[in-house]
């Protein structure tokens, strides 16, 4: 529930920003939506188990599903790669506006 | 003997500075969390006795870490001049004196042999102290 509400807030905010003008705002919106989806992946593992899946420290009994964590790690890096590239695009050309030139 | 004193000074130093921080923290918090403000802010030029980058950095950081004061600029000369913004400045001279006290504690640690040199008192700075 809490995670779902968080995801809802993030997606709403992200979509709002994404549909605005200017590359930076769009990038920030996409970033936010990306975070939200990462949380969704975590949620997919079932967040009623919340112990760290570190078997040197914890027994596996209540360890969280490690697979979504690996997915999220990969997704974070991929999103980061694209975000820094998008920021590069925002800073090149004539300006960062994303609307038609009237 | 000098060495032992230095060790003691060094050991005392964190407590001195910790106390300074705690004290000023409460002063500033009182100001911030009560109605109105008693602050008399100013940007003050503070000549120092720091010779090495380490000393300069330590002094500037101590000033910055103390709530109510922050180092804004660092001058080029050696010994360096600092420009400090402070919330509570009565006049230049007294503020500089406060900073120099802090500097004394610092140099006492960073200069185990030479000890703390005397404070710079130039005609100009005295003059400036008069508002």
């Amino acid at each position, binding site marked *: 529930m809490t995670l779902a509400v968080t995801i809802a807030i993030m997606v*709403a905010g992200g979509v709002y920003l994404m549909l*605005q003008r200017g590359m930076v705002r769009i990038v920030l919106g996409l970033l936010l939506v990306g975070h939200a989806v990462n949380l969704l992946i975590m*949620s997919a*593992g079932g967040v009623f188990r919340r112990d760290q899946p570190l078997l040197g420290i914890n027994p596996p009994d209540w360890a969280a599903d*490690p697979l979504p964590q690996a*997915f*999220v790690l*990969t997704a974070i890096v991929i999103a980061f790669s694209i975000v*820094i590239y998008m920021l590069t695009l925002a800073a090149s050309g004539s300006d960062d506006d994303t609307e038609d030139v009237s | 003997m000098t060495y032992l004193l230095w060790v003691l000074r060094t050991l005392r130093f964190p407590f001195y500075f910790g106390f300074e921080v705690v004290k000023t923290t409460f002063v500033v918090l009182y100001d911030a969390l009560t109605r109105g403000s008693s602050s008399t802010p100013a940007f003050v030029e503070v000549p120092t006795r720091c010779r090495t980058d380490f000393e300069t950095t330590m002094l500037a950081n101590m000033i910055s870490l103390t709530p109510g004061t922050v180092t804004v600029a660092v001058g080029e000369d050696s010994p360096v001049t600092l420009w400090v913004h402070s919330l509570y400045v009565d006049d230049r001279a007294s503020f500089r004196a406060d900073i120099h006290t802090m500097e004394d504690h610092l140099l006492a640690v960073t200069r185990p042999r030479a000890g703390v040199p005397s404070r710079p008192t130039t005609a100009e700075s005295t003059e400036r102290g008069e508002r």
Partner: protein
Amino acid sequence: MLLLTSILVLAVTVLSIPLVERVLGRNTGWFAAAVLAALTALIAAQAPQVLGSGEALTYSVPWMPQIGVEFHLRMDALGWMFTLLVTGVGALIMAYSTRYFPPGRRLGFYLLMTLFAFAMTGLVLADDVVLLYVFWELTTITSFYLIGLSGPGASRPAIRTFLITALGGLALLGAVVLLVVRTGTTQLSTILADQSWTQDTSFTALVAFLVVGAVFTKSAQFPFHYWLPDAMAASTPVSAYLHAAAMVKAGIYLAMRFTPAFGEVLVWNTALIAFGLITAVVGAVFALQQHDLKRLAAYSTVSQLGFLIAVIGIGTPEALVAAAAHTVAHALFKSALFMVVGLVDHEAGTRDLRDLGGLARRMPVTAGIATLASLSMAGIPPLLGFVSKEYLFAGLLGAPGGPWAGVLAGAVAVGAAAFTFAYSFRFVHSAFFGEPRGKRRAEQEDVHEAPVAFWGPASLSALGGLVLGLAVPVLDPLVNGVSQDTTGTAAEAHLLLWHGFNPELAMSALAIGLGALLVWRTASGDSYAGRALLPVDGPSVFERIHSALISTGRRVGDLTRTDTVAFHLGTPVVVVLVLATAVLWLGIDIPAPAGQTSRPLDWLLVGLMGVAVLGAVLTRSRLAALALIGVAGFTTALWLFFLGAFDVALTQLLVEVLTVVVAVLVLRRLPRRFHPVTRKRSALTAVIAIAAGSVAGVAAFALTGRRELSSAASYFLDNAPEDTGGTNVVNTILVDYRAFDTLGELVVLGVAGLIIIAVLRSTDLLPVHQARKPSVPVTNPVFEAVPNTVLMRTVAKYLLPILVVWSLYLLVRGHNEPGGGFIGGLVGGSAFALTYLAASSDAAARIRLAYPTIIGSGVLVALGTGLLGFLEGSFLLPLHAEIPLPGGEYFHFTTALIFDVGVYLVVVGVLLAALNELGLESGDGTDRAAPPPSPPGTSGGGNADETAPSSEGSGATAAGVDTTTTGGAR
């Protein structure tokens, strides 16, 4: 075998044309004519079998068995007749072409003409509907090119012709598909013999309708007739062959071919008779109107094709006999007439009847040919045209639907025939007899007869009409065979020049009489020619539809013709919302949650996220938005901590920090505030956003957390230490179980570094934005870079080694505790970021490392580790070794660690690339020139969006130079 031979010979001829043409040039026609003549002889020799015994020749070989298509060929009487027309007339035209064109290369023409002959032969021999369609379209395509060969002026007519005939072709395709699906076979003869589908009236009507569409467009029936005159832009040999004798007959052939199926289908009869007669009349009337000999011939063809279609529509054996006879007659006289047009055009330099006249004296042979052919066309005995027209009349009188129908059809036909007589007269008389007229009168003095090689083929064609007229019974087996093939009954017709007084004869006489009257009343058509009879003409109607379609298309394109990114992002979001609404509307049963998914402290994060997101949405300051999104990112990291994902949280944290570092490098080149948007748009966006958020929330709530731990998760938690030697299960997944994901991820990251470099080398960075320039004079001590950065440099000096050591520590321990290549790399990269940030000048900040090399090496290291896995049987399989340590313990070494080193290198390389490419201002490494102190009013009060063009240009140049000294790609 003969069928295959014919097809193969033609195919080989086509393929050999490029070689032959290289040698023979325009005389390639002789070669082609020889081949076609030989084929004609070969096929004619089959008459005894095909016509005599009535047994069709067949050949078949599988082609596309998956959809039942076979390469079936079949030659019955109908096929025999059309094959002969194609090859015979083809031979004549090819020969004619050798002299029609001036000396020189004619590769395109001969290639296409032989290709056409090939296609047309295939069309009339195909016994597979798909194959038929293939050849049908092939004739269309060759026709298109042949018209287009005539130069720029022919391009629109060629395109119009192509489109209209292709439209019909698609109707044929529709019919083909319907038949194939219905009958389960593609063999034409089987389909036509199959009685099952013809019982279904509506299906039959649909197929008939589609076939009619194909027939009408190909054979230029009203209202598609206009393409034929339009196509006269083609050279005369092309017109003679395609637009008189062969291609237009494809429609006739198709109509005759399908008569067994549709002969009794009302829609078929009605459409063919009605439109055929209309076409006959319209064509004839328009023909008389023409000044251009070629257009006259073209309209005449339209008219004659109308006659043929109408009589095929009757569907009786007698009618089909007439159709067969007239097909032959028309091919002969019309090809002759077209060749005559070419002769006249060639010799007299014009085809305009207003500029011709009296040519008979200069070109007696041509005049003779023209006369002979025209007489046949006008239906004057003893030519073949007379006989065939008599049979046409007889056939039409038998129109189904009661006696009045026959009378009506007959009457209309007589009317059309009268016009036929008139334009035939006009053709011969206005061109060859009387006095020379018009502008070119003087030049006509120099006109002389064409060489024999030029007029020879035409004369053969014209004489054919005479010979066959006189010896018309020769055609009996043919026409009866055709009748047998198309109606199932042999008509047992005996073609005769004279078969007594009968209605047809009277109709012929009437037609000739009326025609003569018409000639007299219109001064052989002159007084009548050139007048507009209809308010519209075909080509302009076509063009109007064409441009209407184009403007519709433009409007369709306009729907998405915008660079507004929000539009392109909004569309998918809205689609998702629509589909989500549909799913919510339908509803899905969901099981109960598998555990307590919420904890009280979580609400703190919900609240913090709410504040951050709301702030980010509301603010118009770029910095605030970035910072607040950063807060949201940190809150996400906190969430990850709450969920027990320490590695992920740490990664998220580091990425967040580095994103900020990179983002500010970009942000300082942009205005302080975001672009303004209208309130209305904000409201709409807010609605979409809230809907999207709700959908996402509902999906997260309903579709997650409702099952027990997955089997994969249990496996990992139970087996990771034994399988991999690591206890940090997440890390073992990353570098062992799913190393392929990680390999992909690191490639993605590396490529991001490369494309940042590549894009910036092809594009200029924006300069630092005016609004962000310091507003303090250079003389102020705050401005001095070197003394003021001493603090950070000093701290950085102590921090750097810690960062490096710590990053390596994180790298190595990752397999068992939070860390790993990525986290280590990010911390290591931070060291470079610190170096960059703390430096007192760009020159000092520049990191002189070849970061593309670092990135590439990282990828190679990771890949190399992956390839090592092949030693034990699989890509990316980690190898393990126990390395003895001095203390008697063992260090568990795995190649996964080397893999992680690759990850580390890529991360570091990319961060270096971003910092150097985005962060540095100018190539010389010195500080930017101090900006002039700007008055407070302008520094902040100006339009945030405005950037003076001059400063932009200079800044861009400065930034562009940067590429010369950074990176190691060179």
